[in-house]
């Protein structure tokens, strides 16, 4: 069975692609899309691109997919926890007399989150590496970096498109 079809089927089953297609069908581009939905779409996009870039066999892909998803989830979870603690630190610092005990607790929490996040990410990488050969492992590191850059370029492009649209609207009499 072709790996591409596995990828497409699995992504549809996991719900990465379905929302996008449903909206495209309904022509519902004007509907609001939440950051969480976009992040989900980005995950789906990363998974598809990973299969292509690493040239995974069908067998490898079946094992790679949940492990890669676990890495993405781990990272996102750590980031969310970190942001939450940072926000509470920010609120504390806005007080005239920040409670030093609470600041200390928050810093400790931050350190724990970082330590746990690194350990979880390391475990997730080890799981992925078990599925890939040496060359693919190396490619995966490069792929991740380039994927981040690619996603960032898309965010920048989306901003630019919206800015252009606004400019056009303002120029209309």
């Amino acid at each position, binding site marked *: 069975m*072709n790996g*591409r079809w596995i990828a497409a089927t699995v992504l549809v089953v996991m719900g990465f692609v379905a929302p996008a297609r449903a909206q495209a069908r309904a022509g519902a581009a004007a509907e609001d899309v939440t950051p969480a939905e976009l992040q989900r779409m980005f995950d789906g996009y990363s998974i598809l691109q990973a299969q292509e870039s690493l040239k995974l066999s069908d067998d490898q892909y079946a094992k790679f997919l949940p492990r890669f998803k676990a890495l993405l989830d781990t990272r996102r979870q750590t980031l969310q926890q970190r942001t939450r603690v940072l926000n509470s630190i920010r609120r504390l610092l806005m007080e005239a007399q920040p409670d030093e005990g609470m600041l200390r607790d928050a810093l400790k929490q931050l350190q724990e989150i970082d330590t746990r996040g690194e350990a979880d990410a390391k475990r997730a990488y080890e799981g992925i590496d078990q599925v890939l050969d040496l060359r693919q492992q190396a490619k995966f590191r490069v792929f991740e970096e*380039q994927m*981040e850059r690619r996603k960032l370029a898309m965010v920048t492009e*989306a901003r630019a498109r919206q800015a252009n649209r606004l400019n056009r609207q303002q120029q209309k009499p």
Partner: protein
Amino acid sequence: MNGCSHMGHLTPALLVDLAEGIKAEHSVPHLSRCDACRRALAELRATIADVAGRGNPENSGSDVPEPSPLFWDHLSSRVHEAIAEQDALGRAGWFEAWSRPLVSLPILTAAAAAAVLFVVTLHTPTVPNPIPATSLPILQGALLPSLPPLEPLGAPDDPALALMADYGTSLGWDDLREEMAGVSHAGGIDEAVITLSTEERQELQLLLEEEMTQPSALGAS
């Protein structure tokens, strides 16, 4: 922690200790500075005094009669019977809910469809399918001209340093977040997405849909 809550007020436990006289008021300096905590303590003391008053038969208008000894003898067996009855009802309800055709039929249909799909896909021969090269070759960094090379970290004219210096003077936190949205690190894109406006998110959704529906996005290069 000194018994103060997140907002700097006294915790309920400390207030109770103070109200009951377990802790002396002078041992909690916050109390002399905070009207809200003093008010809370006064209310708590009043409530405790009120409850103590009701407990005293001289102050209480209505005495609650003690139940008969027979009541306590039968209480335990009644509770056991009631629990056993609930359990039996719960088990029957679960089975009835799952055995209804409206619930079981779609599940069985979905399972059968999944099994058929699995068998069919297993027997489909592998045919190499030439897919046109992607317009977004992500393993060729040279094709991303929109990304300028990074400035050396710590350079005197590092724009990131200027950005941080502006924070708190001309830049608010939200402005800073927006400016920092371009930071590229693992998970950084999530932060960038959060800072987008509704319209920008819609544009990004369209872009992503374009990328994902391209044949190249599903194929090998």
